């Protein structure tokens, strides 16, 4: 006979009651685990989206004149020296820079059409614009190869393999960019140095796109560092939308955790209530134990062990259900795909410990009440 045998037998005798008393605790743990799992997955998703958005910071010349729009950022006709690219890579937070992609914009006539020419470093640009879908290949650096946007392709009737005459230079179209819904659809992309030659702007760039590598990079700080390192440029952070969304996720998580705390308290009250009624129901049994030589320590041990087992079972069930429900409901209701590999392991033991601790706390008063029972009165209880 061991304490555990006594407790397990007693719990299994009162399965329904044990399950009922654990429901509140299980619910709280389910909520806590799913909130953590879903908010963590949302952070990962937002982080991924940040990368898909492209640059976090756009570096433009400090100018008031308006000529070329590029997405939401307006590009002036004043350029930046290409040497600025190297200077950006020297900022204190250089470890946070994922990619630095300089670009030169210009216009050129092709027949009756005016084309937007974008000079770029292909391997850098493709790192920034992960959504690009190219039929064909990227231009080789320093080569006379170009890719064209979908609108250029359809308007001018060009295909991959066609040659195109821009100013005095003949370029080979090696790839067609699928529709992006952006200004890229109207552009011809070519290697930066080729564009500089064609546009007669050697060693000049129009803008420098900068992508940061982490979710919580200090974007404003990096922008300021760029402006400090490179004279006469404006570095504009474009992460506000992401940050707003991150904040919304954090607020939702905080609210859900508050809700979970309330449920946890209610769950504790449920466990306490059940254990109190268990003390009442087992009053004769407690009297028998006392007559057979049980002291307060024996009774405390029995009640604490019982509550520990309930807490442990509730914690494990709640954690498993929390993970399952977040995997089921996360994608359906919140459109957040849950990948368990992205979720750190520490919340699992933490949630189980929380459940055990809450259950133990809830059993303190019932155990104390049990220890105060008068054994003779208990034995005479009908």
């Amino acid at each position: 006979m061991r304490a555990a045998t006594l407790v397990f037998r007693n719990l299994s005798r009162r399965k329904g009651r044990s399950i009922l008393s654990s429901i509140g605790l299980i619910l709280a743990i389910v909520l806590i685990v799913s909130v953590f799992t879903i908010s963590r997955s949302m952070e990962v998703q937002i982080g991924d989206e940040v990368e898909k958005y492209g640059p976090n910071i756009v570096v433009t010349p400090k100018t008031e004149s308006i000529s070329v729009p590029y997405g939401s950022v307006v590009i002036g006709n004043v350029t930046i020296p290409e040497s600025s690219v190297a200077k950006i890579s020297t900022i204190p937070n250089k470890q946070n820079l994922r990619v630095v992609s300089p670009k030169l914009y210009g216009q050129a006539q092709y027949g009756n059409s005016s084309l937007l020419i974008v000079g770029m470093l292909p391997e850098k640009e493709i790192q920034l614009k992960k959504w690009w879908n190219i039929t064909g290949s990227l231009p080789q650096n320093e080569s006379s190869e170009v890719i064209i946007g979908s609108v250029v392709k359809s308007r001018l009737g060009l295909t991959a393999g066609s040659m195109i005459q821009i100013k005095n230079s003949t370029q080979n179209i090696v790839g067609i960019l699928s529709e992006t819904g952006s200004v890229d659809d109207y552009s011809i992309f070519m290697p930066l140095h080729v564009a500089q030659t064609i546009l007669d702007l050697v060693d000049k760039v129009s803008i420098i796109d900068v992508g940061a590598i982490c979710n919580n990079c200090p974007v404003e700080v990096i922008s300021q560092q760029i402006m400090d390192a490179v004279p006469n440029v404006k570095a504009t952070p474009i992460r506000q939308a992401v940050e707003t969304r991150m904040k919304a996720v954090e607020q939702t998580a905080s609210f859900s955790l508050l809700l979970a705390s309330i449920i946890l308290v209610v769950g504790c009250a449920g466990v306490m209530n059940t254990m109190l009624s268990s003390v009442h129901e087992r009053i004769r049994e407690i009297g028998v134990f006392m007559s057979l030589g049980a002291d307060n320590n024996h009774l405390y041990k029995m009640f604490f062990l019982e509550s520990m087992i309930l807490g442990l079972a509730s914690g494990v069930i709640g954690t498993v259900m929390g993970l399952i429900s977040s995997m089921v409901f996360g994608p359906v209701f919140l459109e957040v795909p849950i990948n368990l590999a992205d979720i750190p392991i520490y919340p699992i033991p933490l949630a189980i410990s929380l459940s055990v601790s809450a259950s133990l706390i809830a059993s303190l008063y019932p155990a104390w009440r049990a220890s105060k029972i008068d054994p003779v009165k208990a034995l005479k209880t009908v």
Partner: protein
Amino acid sequence: MIMVNEVTKAYEMGGNQVLALNNLTLRIDDGDFLAITGPSGSGKSTLLYTVGGLLTPTKGDVTVDDMSIYKLTSRERAKFRRENVGFIFQSFELLPYLTAFENVMIPLYLAGVSSIEQETAAQEALEKVGLASRAYHKPTELSGGEQQRVSIARGIVSNPTILLADEPTGNLDQKTGNEIMQLLCRLHAKDELTVIVVTHDAAIAERANRRVEMIDGRLVQERAI
């Protein structure tokens, strides 16, 4: 030797004080088989539980081998019960979710005895009461007489010196009651136990070697049989 020295136990009932034990003095020698008789409410069970260390008297003292048991802390008194006293109840008071064997092991578990020693002692105790073959049955699968035998086995498993039985035949028919009393007599004779039986059945009391009668918390008659 058990000495009950001028013990009074008072209860408050509806604003009035009721004396369950009224300045009662009683000496019980080692190896006595004492029957306490009397009508309902005369204080028989109160005296039994007071001797067993379960009921602190309002006044007076109980000593066992010159040790005043109510001067012990509650923890020490629980230890005293574990080591010296076995209880048998009218309603058997077996735990329904444990087998007979496991029920018998409870006092040993409380005493911190190892599982193997618990099993050996429980087996021996069940053999003494003639119930070894029913060891793995739950109380609900046993007859009243068998349940009381398990209760007796539980009472003697720790080799106590005092066995206290509160109406041990009260829930049994006459034949089974007689068998239980025979068993108690045999254990008393064989193990030299001090046995105190509370009963209101004169025939049962006749089996003891000493009998006291109580009315209103006092001893009114004592005789050796």
